[in-house]
């Protein structure tokens, strides 16, 4: 009897370690952003469309919370989430900046014409530098940036109404919401 106690304890310990390892394996969809609680990287990028429209600076929304949605016309999940973004835009709670990542301008404009445009502004990141600054590894990704310019949340994968209400709307200070 006694001689089985130690092996069983060792087995349970090992099983525990492996269980934690399996459960917390770096699943792509649950990885926490390295930017949480840190200031959002500043960027100044060309706006999609007519070159005469000029550039957009991330400082534009300083002092109020805003959302950054990383997308591209090559991204299938972006198409899935698009109707949700349109519904969200109708709520008109937060400005949504679209970061058109590694994409073709004409494809992007056709996409927005055909499917509708949920974005307050769309900026073009054709070289993917701003996406890297935000630690983006797969589209779509959506960031919540608070009034102090700090990244408070990052959602990886298609946005859902449930995630939007819980993680984004839930983070809006009451004085800001309409």
């Amino acid at each position, binding site marked *: 009897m006694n001689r089985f106690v130690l092996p069983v304890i060792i087995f349970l310990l090992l099983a525990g370690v492996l269980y934690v390892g399996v459960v917390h394996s*770096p699943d792509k969809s649950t*990885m926490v952003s*390295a930017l949480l609680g840190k200031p959002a990287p500043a960027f100044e990028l060309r706006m999609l469309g007519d070159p005469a429209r000029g550039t957009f600076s991330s400082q534009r929304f300083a002092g109020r919370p805003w959302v950054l949605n990383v997308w591209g016309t090559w991204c299938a999940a972006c198409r899935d989430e698009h109707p949700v973004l349109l519904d969200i835009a109708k709520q008109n709670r937060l400005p949504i900046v679209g970061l058109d990542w*590694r994409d073709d301008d004409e494809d992007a404009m056709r996409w927005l014409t055909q499917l509708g445009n949920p974005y307050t502004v769309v900026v073009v990141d054709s070289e*993917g530098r701003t996406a*890297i*600054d935000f*630690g983006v*590894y*797969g589209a779509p990704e959506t960031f919540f940036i608070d009034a102090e310019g700090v990244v408070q949340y990052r959602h990886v994968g298609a946005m859902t109404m449930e995630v939007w209400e819980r993680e984004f709307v839930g983070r809006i200070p009451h004085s800001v919401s309409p």
Partner: protein
Amino acid sequence: MNTRGIWLAAICASVLLARVASAIDITLLPNEAQQQRYEALTHEIRCMQCMNNSIADSPVGLAADLRRDVREMIIAGKTDDEIRAYMVQRYGNVILFNPPLTSSTAWVWATPLVALIGGIVVAIVIVRRRGRLVADDDTPVDEETPR
């Protein structure tokens, strides 16, 4: 084709595929020292989209962008540590295949050491017990032989 032939074909195919994979990145840096640093760094940075490839082995766009950043930083005179810090600041420690020793990763290094010491202790205990059994055993040898 017999089994051995199938195995041979499979091995040849995988070697050929490996050669194709290594041809993803054909970047050349101005000098040999920079080239070596570039190749070492791109092999220790994880492709976050494919998880178990390095950015040197990955054909996805993000990996190409990260290789470009590594190349630009080397040419701009950044040190290897500065380049690693750049990656970690954006993607976290998970982007390095060889993550730094911190309080949250210490157990990775500690576990094998603990297991090794535990094993040695168990081995010593067993050897000692056996030794004692033999010393206490005064049964004549011929009585132990099987009937």
